[in-house]
């Protein structure tokens, strides 16, 4: 996984709650067997009309927001389906940080597996960011190590789980880490060797 430490960029705000993963990446893009190239489907039904023509008013279609690395939204971002295609689409589009009042659990976890930093902020902090970016292009600098968000007139700190922070900073792969504990897993399997737990082979 790519390391994440610092990032600066213009924020794009989508002032909605309950942005679900169907909205982030609609089903027609789920037929792929690859992780790459999903940026074209990001917020597809908001970015393109029925005739596949770009909707110029949508924020991510406008310059310079089409190159935003930081997305801002309201409550319960990423609710719904567990599809990891949602973070794949975001990162492929170039979005590496999401600021929101709250996140849905599965999406939140999926972000960390893909080098995306989801940051939970207070309602008033999100509103402040949204208000600032209404009047001018708001550029923010996110520092994961220091857990700070800085920009003109914005100076915030954020909470993050220690372990998740370490994984992002080092670009660690969870599976590699777990495979190092192979002996513990084997021990657990021997100790908990309940015969009823072993599924029978079909047929």
């Amino acid at each position, binding site marked *: 996984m790519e390391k994440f430490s610092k990032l600066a960029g213009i924020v794009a705000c989508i002032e909605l709650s309950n942005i679900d993963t169907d909205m982030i990446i609609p089903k027609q893009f789920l037929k792929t067997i690859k992780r790459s190239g999903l940026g074209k489907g990001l917020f597809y039904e908001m970015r393109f009309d029925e005739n596949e023509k770009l909707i110029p008013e949508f924020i991510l279609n406008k310059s310079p927001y089409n190159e935003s690395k930081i997305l801002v939204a309201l409550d319960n971002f990423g609710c719904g*389906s567990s599809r990891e295609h949602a973070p794949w689409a975001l990162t492929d589009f170039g979005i590496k940080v999401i600021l929101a009042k709250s996140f849905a659990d*599965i999406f939140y976890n999926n972000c960390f597996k893909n080098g995306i930093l989801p940051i939970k902020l207070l309602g008033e902090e999100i509103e402040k960011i949204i208000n600032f970016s209404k009047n001018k292009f708001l550029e923010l600098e996110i520092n994961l190590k220091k857990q700070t968000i800085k920009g003109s007139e914005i100076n915030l700190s954020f909470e993050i*789980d220690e372990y998740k922070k370490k994984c992002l900073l080092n670009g660690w792969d969870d599976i590699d880490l777990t495979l190092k504990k192979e002996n513990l897993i084997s021990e657990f399997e021997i100790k908990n060797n309940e015969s009823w737990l072993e599924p029978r*082979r079909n047929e």
Partner: protein
Amino acid sequence: MKPQTIFDKIWSSHIVDQNPSGECLLYIDRHLIHEVTSPQAFEGLKNNKRKVRKPLMTLAVPDHNVPTTERRFGITDNESRIQVEKLIENCREFGIPFFPIEDLRQGIVHIIGPEQGFTLPGTTLVCGDSHTSTHGAFGSLAFGIGTSEVEHVLSTQTLILKPAKNYLINFVGELKKGITAKDVILHLIGKIGTAGGTGFVFEYAGKVIENFSMEERMTICNMSIEAGARAGLIAPDNKTFEYLKDKPLSPKGEEWDKAVEYWKTLKSDKNAHFDKKIDIIASSIEPQVTWGTSPEDVVSITASVPDPAKIKSTDKRQSAERALDYMGLEPGQKMCNIDINTVFIGSCTNGRIEDLRKAAEILNGRKINKKVRAFVVPGSGLVKKQAEEEGLDKIFVSSGFEWREPGCSMCLAMNADKLQPHERCASTSNRNFEGRQGRGGRTHLLSPEMAAAAAIKGKLFDVRKL
């Protein structure tokens, strides 16, 4: 010992390791996979030359992307076919058991798990699908995961997780006549909101839950995720054991007895700590139907479309306005006067045999409205076979429904079953998000009984008045 909830008991008995900041390496007993969220996980395994640790702990079935019409000539959609073929190819390569599309046992992952006895009380069960919460009906700690975690489970049979908090959902008293499990869960979601359960595992309790059949309990647990909870749990009881006994993958003989003895201990202890509790008065629940684009946008069929102007929170008011605009509805419009033109009965929420029986009971001897396109998609090949043995297919077909092959179908509209823009559907599925059933399509979530009534009337209708 400190009193424990069911969640605490299952969680603590599956901890392989724990780090100082609280993350646990949790052992996973059961893993279901399907064609849409697994190919990239297998690709990861192959790229890193990793093995599948315990192939028999995983069970695979194609469901999301399969056609529900004629299957004799295979899958015509190229991308769908490749995905389904890839699943089978990967399972063969890694020795994972699978049910191919032509197998009678093929169906929606969350229907076939219980049907096969793959789902068992006291186990941890995961799947790359958010509706994995369904299996909590059996007292299995079951939750949806992303594809990276699918790969993690395949490779290590574990996951790295922090424990959830406990939330007790207690139903007080009994339901009024004609109220279904779907009404109960929609009512709860309306009450606590789609983020009400974020960070929690629900435990459902009360007489209502005890009286429910396993099918009804599955409908309840299935939609836990729609209230933000990754998992929902119900204490296993005699109904649970009866359902699982003699299922193909259930333990047999002495192993069965030993298992049941253990399963009986999976109840929350008296005085166990819940971080949050809610009492829901069961008799206050009416038949529910959604009006908006989030499962929390729900009211009784006897009510009207809410007026956004009366909502105080700016954010919620704007959401409601956007939802009404998308749904093509006016504030104050009576729910029972909303015309529909499509009816979908199926999904992991309501695609089981009992659901089909209940819908068929309403449809028996009646015809659906002429302008309505209606179809039933059984949750699995075995549900379909059972329904046909009971003659339910004939009731559906003679009332004007189409009788289809099993799969996820128009719950997420990945296959050819979709709504056209502005088509309005009474659906027994679980999500009414914008575009969920097809771009511009308008979804009203409801029970199978209410879906059948809507098909007959050509509009949303209180099934109790039929």
